[in-house]
């Protein structure tokens, strides 16, 4: 399982967000360059239509592959009342011919994208990962070198944390409370619930930039 929230931020404020995150997390950012391929089963295969994601980490000297399966979000009144999406998620590292295998099994490429940005991994009540990235599309199949932004000037911010059925309420609380610190710059919500950019972003960014990220909580 994982807990996840998303938000967007204007590229001009990303530097301020980075300073804020650096101050909050106390760790260094890691560069992010991930080629993401979404595959779907052909019509007759499987009792239900299925979807799988292959992630190729291009930041590594030798690209590494991961296969990820994301299930439907947790439902019910309890789930609706919390501001964080909880959903099943399983990953497995896999050898580089994964795409060939899934093609052989009857999966077809639905879409692909390239995420470029940075990530912070840290422990704060839960093992939290914050990624800030621009989503790029490829004009030609798999041509990651010629990718262009899908939404120029806007970047995606995602906060995720692994959880289990035993501890997800604590993880949700940890993610929610962390998100509050980012509130002046961006609003984070469940994926699919778009809340846009926040009006205070410019002022908050200017303040962060001027005091050089020295802000302590």
């Amino acid at each position, binding site marked *: 399982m994982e807990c996840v929230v998303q938000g967007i931020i204007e590229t001009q404020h990303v530097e301020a967000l980075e300073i804020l995150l650096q101050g909050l997390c106390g760790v260094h950012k890691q560069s992010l360059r991930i080629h993401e391929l979404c595959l779907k089963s052909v019509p007759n*295969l499987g*009792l239900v239509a*299925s979807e799988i994601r292959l992630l190729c980490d291009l930041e590594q000297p030798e690209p590494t592959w991961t296969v990820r399966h994301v299930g439907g979000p947790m439902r019910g009144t309890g789930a609706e009342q919390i501001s964080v999406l909880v959903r099943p998620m399983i990953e*497995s590292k*896999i*050898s580089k011919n994964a795409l060939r295998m899934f093609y052989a099994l*009857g999966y077809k490429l639905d879409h692909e994208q390239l995420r470029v940005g940075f990530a912070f991994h840290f422990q704060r009540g839960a093992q939290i990962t914050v990624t800030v990235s621009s989503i790029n599309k490829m004009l030609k199949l798999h041509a990651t070198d010629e990718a262009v932004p899908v939404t120029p000037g806007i970047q995606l911010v995602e906060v995720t944390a692994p959880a289990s059925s035993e501890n997800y309420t604590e993880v949700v609380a940890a993610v929610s409370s962390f998100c509050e610190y980012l509130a002046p710059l961006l609003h984070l919500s469940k994926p699919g619930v778009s809340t846009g950019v926040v009006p205070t972003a410019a002022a908050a960014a200017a303040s962060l930039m001027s005091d050089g990220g020295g802000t302590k909580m």
Partner: protein
Amino acid sequence: MPIKWVLHWQPNAGTTVNTQILTEVSQCVESINGVKEGRWKATLSFYKPMLRVEQANALEFPRDFLGISLQEQPNKYYFVIRGQRLILEAESSIQTIMEKLQSYKTRVALNFEGFQYQLGDFQLRVGKVVPIHSESLRGIVMEMEYLPISSWEKSHQIMGEFFDIWQEALAKRSLPGHFVHIEPILSEFGLSDQYTSQHTAVQYASIMAQMIATAQSAQAVRN
């Protein structure tokens, strides 16, 4: 990692495997001073596609899709599609992912299990092939591992020589069959000369195909 050959028992025409043969093979390893060390096990699953309309387009999907778990790599899982010369290594969690996808299910799963023996620089593993949740013997397998060498090419001579010695020792018992070594063309699977567990998985897929072919032809003769 050390190189190994995976062998399977080929019964003589008109005969089948039985536990007596397995017992004799194990005794033979001990008679050439093999020292029993402990248990060993591998598991192999055949998958079949789950189709919404059966037979509609079944031929589009691979019929030889296998999943293999090996004791030497307990946190890994291997997929082989022999017809397409595909070998894939993943973390064991891939099995849960496959279950969630509900696009393939296990048609039959087999255990390969038995004992491991140490014999100088060689490690021998002799075991039975049985369906999970059943004791009906489907075959006999043997792993022949040579610890000092990890190059497939360089080990060829010594492995061949040891295999001959082993065959000679076994021949004295006049059993109704013999062990066969089939050598898959590993480079076709994109595997290099340096031995890995992916080589082992491909060998298991190969002996499995051979055992099925033997069983099918025996059945054809009976019919």
